[in-house]
């Protein structure tokens, strides 16, 4: 399961997040160890997206501490940049850059942030595209690809900066049903290779087979966490039970 000797790669201590008057996160405590696969689930509005968006500072937390790979997240741009280089993100709506081809999408960040040379950059990008089995679309525009293909490119793009952790924000929620498995397969491969990941998703099958730890959130709080076996078969909290009933029976 978790490997405490290597240390925790992500640590959230008592994190609060307010949007105006509305409190989206209430006293969240979470640790993620290197190589751990965490699935975060919960009803909409529970704060799960907000949680992971705080980890790469797309949202700024209002109180508490967030430490990623030894860097504490503050307003300081240096800290934020350092964290973002090591944390990759895959979005629900893919967010591929429409004005760049598939391979150019992957090459942009390494070129600008790591000043990679053109040939090396392209070679690395093509390798990543092969890894997600989409190398023959390399020179196409994103708009020419299906949703499932675009999301696989998005995963490859997240990998192009060699992140230590990848955050997934409902990666399959915007996909037609027949494309969900091609994306989940890529994510399962990544998990098998030992990538640390935090995944917000409704795909409970994925959670059961891949997750080391399942986190259930409701109304801004972490209600229950546990390995999939205990979480799904023996939930401790009534709220968890209710959620599982709603999501697993229809």
């Amino acid at each position, binding site marked *: 399961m978790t490997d405490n000797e290597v240390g925790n790669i992500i640590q959230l201590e008592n994190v609060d997040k307010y949007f105006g008057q509305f409190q989206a996160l209430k006293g969240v405590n979470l640790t993620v160890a290197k190589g751990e696969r965490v699935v975060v689930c919960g009803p909409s509005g529970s704060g799960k997206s907000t949680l992971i968006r705080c980890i790469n500072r797309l949202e700024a937390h209002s109180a508490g501490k967030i430490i990623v790979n030894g860097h504490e997240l503050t307003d300081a741009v240096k800290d934020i940049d350092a964290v973002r280089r090591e944390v990759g993100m895959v979005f629900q709506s893919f*967010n591929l850059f429409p004005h760049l081809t598939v391979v150019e999408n992957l090459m942009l960040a390494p070129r600008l942030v790591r000043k990679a040379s053109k040939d090396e950059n392209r070679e690395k990008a093509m390798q990543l595209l092969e890894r997600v089995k989409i190398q023959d679309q390399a020179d196409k525009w994103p708009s020419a690809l*299906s949703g499932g293909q675009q999301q696989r490119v998005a995963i490859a793009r997240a990998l192009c*900066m060699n992140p230590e952790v990848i955050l997934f924000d409902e990666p399959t929620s915007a996909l037609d049903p027949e494309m969900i498995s091609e994306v989940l397969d890529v994510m399962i491969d990544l998990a098998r290779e030992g990538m640390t990941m935090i995944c917000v998703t409704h795909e409970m099958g994925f959670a059961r087979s891949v997750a080391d730890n399942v986190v259930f959130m409701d109304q801004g709080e972490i209600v229950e966490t546990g390995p999939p076996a205990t979480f799904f078969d023996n939930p401790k909290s009534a709220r968890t039970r209710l959620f599982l009933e709603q999501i697993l029976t229809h």
Partner: protein
Amino acid sequence: MSFDFALILDSIPKMLMGIGLTLQLLFLSLAIGTALAIILLLMRISGRWYLAAPTMVYIYIFRGTPILVQIFIIYYGLPQLEFVRDSIFWPILREPFGCAIVALSLNTGAYVSEIFRGGVLGVDRGLTEAGAALGLSARHRFIYITAPIAIRLCLPAYSNDVVSLMKSTALASTITLLDMMGIARTIVAETYAPYEVFLSLMVIYLIITWIIQRTFGWIEKRMSRHIRSEV
């Protein structure tokens, strides 16, 4: 009331002599105005109130008053002020051409900066977030993600503004400049034949408008290659 075709054939070449001035007014004001618009845009979206507020006031004033009044203030009004007459800009502001360029540029700058701002706001937030998640700095995100997409979004409105600017150049004739409009007015004053002269001038302006629109249509098509999907 007869239509004097001979007059038309005689007047058109004379009016076309003014096309040089018309085009100079157009291109110079467009270039300066667009450059100004970029500066104003960056100030407006900088997030710093001391940059954004004056910009918003400037835009509000220049979009809220008639351009004719702006031209008059600069050409007739500024000479009243001593510090203007003593400044280094006086040689420019003393001449009607200089005043026209200044007025048109300042005016266009205000409109175009709002057009650019509309384009920037139209860029899907998710795309800049994806850039941020990849570790791109704010500057890089603006140059490589926001700007290319925003420019394409702005093109229709920008092309409309270029047409508007072209039409505004005709107002230079009110401060003695002999662009096409100015020459036309002189001819009409001499011949009392407004239909022949003004209608033919109208055709010339319509041709210029058509050229502007076709050019931007072509640019837009080229910039949208990536949108026409094959799926």
